[in-house]
């Protein structure tokens, strides 16, 4: 069993519940059998209660707002101010991008839905290429007469064709396609197989 001298050293902490669990157990075990230490503990308790009753608790009303206000009054580091300025600007630019995106989306939708002319114009550049590409065998040597007559004529690939051929199927392996835009004519030449 612990001596009263050791226990009395821990009574203040015991009163304040600041001991380790095993120490709390040891002190409590000793107090159950020692009237002297129990009296000392009672004195500690009385003294603590009296001290707490005479000490005035400061009021904390408005404490947090006062602290924040004081922090705000502190001079901000330059980098912090720059970062804050940039963040505000980025927010503004982001809004600008959103508006720009909205306007662009509306413009695209309008062009697609309202102006078939635009679609025709957009397709025009690819028309001649498509026509040539879809022919199974492009510009194969046709009849000599054809070649002689059209050697210097513009071809579908570099002119505003008057027929947009999207599909051309033939068993013939010598299909030739060309355009004569000045006469609004496109020619598909299917020479008979030998």
């Amino acid at each position, binding site marked *: 069993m612990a001596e009263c001298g050791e226990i009395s050293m821990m009574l203040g902490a015991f009163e304040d519940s600041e001991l380790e669990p095993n120490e709390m157990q040891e002190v409590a075990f000793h107090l159950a059998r020692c009237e002297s230490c129990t009296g000392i503990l009672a004195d500690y308790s009385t003294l603590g209660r009296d001290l707490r009753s005479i000490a005035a608790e400061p009021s904390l009303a408005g404490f947090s707002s006062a602290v924040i206000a004081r922090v705000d009054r502190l001079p901000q580091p330059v980098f912090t101010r720059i970062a804050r300025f940039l963040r505000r600007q980025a927010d503004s630019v982001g*809004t600008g991008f*959103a*508006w720009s*995106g*909205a306007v662009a*989306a*509306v413009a695209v*939708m*309008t062009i697609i*839905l*309202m102006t*078939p*002319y635009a679609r*025709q114009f957009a397709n025009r550049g690819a028309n001649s290429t498509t*026509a040539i590409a879809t022919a199974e065998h492009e510009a194969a040597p*046709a*009849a*000599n*007469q*054809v070649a*002689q*007559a*059209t050697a210097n*004529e513009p071809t579908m690939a570099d002119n505003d064709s*008057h*027929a*947009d*051929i*999207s*599909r*051309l*199927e*033939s*068993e*013939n392996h010598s*299909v030739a396609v060309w355009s*004569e835009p000045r*006469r*609004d*004519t*496109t*020619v*598909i*030449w*299917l*020479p*008979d197989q030998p």
Partner: protein
Amino acid sequence: MTLRPGSLTFLIIAITAFGTPGLSYAQPAPKQVFVYIDSVMAADTNEGTDPRLGPMDKKLRGLFGFSTYSLIGHNEGQTDCGKMIAFTLPGGKILHVQPRAIDNDMIAMEIVLFDGTRPMMTTDLKLKNNGTLIVGGPRYEQGMMIISIGASTGGVSPPMQAQVVGTPAEANTH
């Protein structure tokens, strides 16, 4: 009321998507397509050009180098978009033309050329209104056959077409 950019975008897109088709298709589009077919025999027999070819002569000479062009058939007919029209051509050829749509000044159509029952060529194309597609190459008698296919939404024969007057009796109007 504050309108956020996202809300505004949605609103404008919705108006555009649902409001403009009516505007786009408000104009009544002609649905009938007139098709003109001239069948020409081209050869190197130095017989000149059939006078019935009319304005086609210059065009054919500009496109090909034959010395003889003879009109061997003329067909014409009208059909609605989506309905196929068939033409019987000289030399046992059959031509199917099916206008699909009229898009501004272009006529979308499918053309199938048969040699008897055998399909020689199938093509999907958009032909300019009053434009001409020429399909040529198949042998015909001592030369080659050139088929001029013209299409129009206005019922006026394209300038390329041969003069109908005096066409051979076998080239019946379809």
